[in-house]
C-alpha cells in the first residue's frame, strides 16, 4: 500500500524569483503564512524553522535548495502530540509558464493515518491561497473564521 502524500498545484501570476523569495524569507512568510516566520541559512543539510511569536512551530533541515526551481525540507511539527510521528518531507517545485509560475507542493513521507497528514491537508490550501493572493494583489487573505463560526 502506498504511503499517504499530499500534492497541491496552483498557478500564480508572478516570477519564479519573487515566489522563491516568498518561500524563503521570514518577513514574507509572516505575511501570508498566518504569522509564521521561516529562518534558515538555506544550505543543504542546515536547519530551518518556522516560528510564531518566538515559539518554534515547525523545524527540520534543508534537503534541496535550487533557486528558483526546487526547495525541499524535512518537516517536524513541534506540537507535543505530534512528536511521535515520523519526520515528513515538503518539496516545492516552481516551473515558469510565461507570465505565470506553476507551483507544485508535495508533502510526503507521512505516517499512515497520522494527525500530521490530516493537519497539513487542511493547512496547505489556506497557506497557498494566501500566498497567491499576496503575490497577485499585494495583500494576503484576511483572517478566516472556522466553519463552526459561520452562521
Amino acid at each position, binding site marked *: 500500500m502506498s504511503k499517504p502524500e499530499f500534492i497541491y498545484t496552483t498557478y500564480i501570476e508572478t516570477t519564479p524569483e519573487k515566489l522563491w523569495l516568498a518561500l524563503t524569507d521570514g518577513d514574507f512568510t509572516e505575511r501570508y503564512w498566518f504569522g509564521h516566520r521561516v529562518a534558515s541559512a538555506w544550505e543543504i543539510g542546515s536547519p530551518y524553522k518556522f516560528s510564531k511569536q518566538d515559539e518554534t512551530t515547525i523545524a527540520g533541515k534543508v534537503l534541496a535548495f535550487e533557486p528558483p526551481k526546487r526547495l525541499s525540507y524535512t518537516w517536524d511539527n513541534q506540537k507535543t502530540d505530534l512528536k511521535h510521528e515520523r519526520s515528513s518531507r515538503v518539496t516545492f517545485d516552481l516551473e515558469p*509558464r*510565461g507570465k505565470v509560475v506553476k507551483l507544485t507542493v508535495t508533502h510526503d513521507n507521512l505516517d499512515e493515518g497520522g494527525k500530521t497528514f490530516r493537519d497539513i491537508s487542511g493547512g496547505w490550501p489556506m497557506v497557498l491561497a494566501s500566498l497567491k493572493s499576496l503575490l497577485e494583489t499585494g495583500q494576503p487573505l484576511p483572517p478566516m473564521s472556522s466553519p463552526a463560526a459561520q452562521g
Partner: protein
Amino acid sequence: MRKPEFIYVSYIETTPERLWEALTNSAFTKRYWFDTEVRSDWKVGSPFALVMGHFRATGKSHTSIATCSFHLTLTESASRLLRFIVFAAQLICQSIRHRVGLHPHLQPGRS
C-alpha cells in the same frame, strides 16, 4: 476498487454570492475559464454544457472551430457540481493541450 476522484480546495477573498455568479454566469466563466462558457438554466435535472468556441483545432491552412460539450444531470448538491466543474476543467485543459497546445496565456515566452 475505489473510483478515482479529484478534490481541490481553495480559499478566495470574496462572498459566496459572487463566487456562485462566477460559477454559473457564462460571461463570467468565459473570462477565467479560458473562453469556456457554461450553459444551463440551472434547474435540477436540466442539461448542463461547457462550450468552448473559437479554438483553432490544428495549424492547418483552414481553421476549424472546435466545440465540445459535457453534459450531466444536476444534483441538488452544489459541492458535487463544483467538483464536477473542476474535474471537467481538467479534462478540457488536457484535451486542449493534446489538440492545440497550451492556451496562449500559459505558453512560455508569450507576453
